């Protein structure tokens, strides 16, 4: 009885924190004045770093670890409310959906790099494989679009398997080169391939599901019209929720343990029977499937794909997000995704300088806080784990 009551009591700060984050997201997307954007960003960064050092931060962590299910539903609800509040705002919804989809792709990279230690400098390429798959399949076939999206993921995973053999045979810097070479190869291939539209790329039809066209605005009553991006934002939110659940469960299982073992010490892992190749293949493929799936939805939302979106530089942005957020911490990765995607859009001054600023920022993080803004915590196999 008492135990239950005390458990319930610790949930309220966590619910309040979720609401505060949602409120912040709303404000951030709404404000226009540049100084307000700067103030909000600075405030968020300070809050984020302070949270790690205060008792409130520990309390929140404890609450999430003890009762993740109700808090996760609360977070989903809060995100839905934010989406609903912008139901008529094209631009805000586009940004929200972009953050959500990049988030899915970066969760994929987290499985690869954060857990299995397989660095992937061609994340944007696999995102692009999904986009081009969607473009071709949705234009030339009558395949249901949910399957088109799935095909984007599957094809990204399949093309990734071309790199699996070289990645398994090489280690460290040699392996890094393989994905760098692939990133350049992929973009150049798209540019010179006329069947895939060359440098201009391809148009992608909008998504249709169960007779519902995602690209039509939604008329509500007489003078209210909801943005067509609302459908994409909701779909992306569900996709991200699924990806998050997958990554969480993966990490909190023997699978996550195996990936960690392989990343930290391949030799020791093999001496204790771990099939290093199996785990690297699993992580690399799963990560690419997530990136490809997100890429397919993103392409259908924006309506076109072109090689210029899938360069090595874009892949580096994805890697930066994964490091900035905190290697192996999905929540940190989502926070970093939001920062990297939204900030340049809101802060016009830095739009032009964003690559410079983010690169500089990553340098600072690597020098002074290599575990990232929100460092990963010890594995929590089950709710309430670890109180021996």
């Amino acid at each position: 009885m008492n135990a239950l009551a005390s458990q319930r009591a610790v949930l309220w700060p966590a619910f309040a924190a979720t609401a505060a984050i949602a409120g912040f997201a709303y404000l951030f997307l709404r404000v226009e004045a540049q100084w307000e954007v700067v103030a909000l960003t600075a405030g968020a960064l300070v809050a984020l770093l302070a949270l790690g050092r205060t008792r409130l931060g520990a309390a929140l962590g404890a609450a999430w670890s003890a009762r993740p299910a109700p808090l996760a539903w609360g977070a989903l609800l809060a995100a839905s409310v934010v989406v609903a509040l912008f139901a008529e705002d094209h631009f805000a919804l586009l940004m929200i959906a972009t953050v959500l989809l990049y988030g899915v792709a970066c969760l994929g990279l987290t499985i690869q790099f954060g857990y299995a230690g397989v660095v992937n400098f061609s994340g944007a390429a696999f995102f692009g494989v999904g986009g081009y798959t969607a473009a071709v399949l949705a234009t030339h076939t009558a395949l249901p679009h949910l399957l088109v999206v799935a095909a984007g993921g599957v094809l990204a995973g399949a093309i990734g398997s071309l790199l699996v053999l070289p990645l398994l045979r090489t280690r460290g810097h040699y392996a890094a080169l393989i994905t760098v070479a692939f990133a350049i190869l992929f973009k150049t291939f798209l540019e010179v391939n006329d069947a895939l539209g060359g440098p201009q790329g391809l148009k992608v039809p909008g998504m249709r599901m169960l007779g519902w066209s995602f690209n039509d605005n939604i008329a509500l009553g007489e003078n209210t019209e909801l943005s067509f991006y609302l459908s994409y934002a909701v779909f992306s939110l569900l996709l991200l929720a699924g990806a998050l659940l997958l990554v969480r469960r993966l990490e909190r299982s023997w699978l996550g343990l195996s990936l960690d073992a392989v990343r930290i010490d391949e030799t020791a892992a093999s001496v204790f029977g771990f099939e290093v190749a199996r785990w690297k293949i699993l992580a690399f493929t799963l990560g690419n499937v997530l990136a490809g799936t997100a890429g397919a939805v993103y392409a259908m939302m924006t309506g076109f794909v072109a090689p210029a979106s899938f360069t090595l530089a874009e892949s580096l942005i994805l890697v930066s997000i994964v490091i900035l957020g905190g290697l192996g911490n999905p929540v940190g990765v989502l926070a970093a995704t939001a920062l990297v995607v939204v900030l340049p859009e809101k802060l016009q001054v830095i739009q032009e300088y964003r690559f410079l600023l983010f690169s500089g920022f990553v340098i600072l993080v690597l020098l002074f806080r290599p575990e990232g803004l929100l460092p990963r915590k010890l594995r929590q196999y089950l709710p309430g784990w670890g109180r021996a």
Partner: protein
Amino acid sequence: MDVSLLGQYVLNGLMLGTIYAMVAVGFTLFFGVLDVIKFSHGDVLMVGAFTGLVAYLGLSALGVQSNALLSLGVMLTAVPLIALLGAAMARWLVLPLRGSPPINVLLITLMAGTVLREAIRLFYPAGANPKPFPRLLPTDAVSFGALTLRFDSAILIALGLASIVAVHLLVTRTRLGLAIRAVAQDSETAQVMGMNFQRVVLVTFAIGSALAALAGVTAGLYYNEINFGMGLLLGVIGFSAAVVGGLGNLYGAILGGFLFAGLQTLGAVWFAVPAYKDVFAFAVVILVMTWRPTGLIAEQQAERV
């Protein structure tokens, strides 16, 4: 294919191979002493080319007209300044990360490369556009039958090869080279034996970066155009060349550089669409890595368990 066209391909391949080898030698030197990949190497090269261009503009403004003097001025400005830049990056970006996972060094230098690239694009006057690079070398040509050889190409190839040989001699024949090799072999023992580890590392990075500056100026003089993004691809190619040859091995880097140029040339001959040459070359790189995971001239290393 007629002989003169073939000759052109071969000459062009030699020129590219020389530039690639110069870049690859830098990668392999850094890897040798510190086991790190300095991914910003290509962008350092690009900054070298721009430094050379600024030197040229400055000297011209001062009224220097002799092409020979201008060339000398360009080299003598770009090479030492970029050597300093390389040492500074080693001092403040690479050395502080000793002890963290090696991939972090690759990442931090990658980001530093982006900073350099973006800085030139944003802060050099109209830096986003390609800049014409002056034609400073004599362009007269001699013909051997169907083959014409232009003096500027010949000079640049000779200069590039000479600089590689010079670095090679420096590493194999001098006291400094001995220190570099000692640190590369076993940095702990070398330190115990009284070698100033940090100084050796900084000097090595200075030498590698000086070579990159020379490669940048060479590329500028050869193509007569430079741009802020030129370093990215050159860097990746130099990295590929060093890796394919076998990291840490000087001969491997040279071999890798010419091999990559050869592949691109072959690709250009074989495919109707010339841009496929890079797709082809990088695909072969991936295949070579699959076949010989530590490069053609393999890194000699048994893992310590």
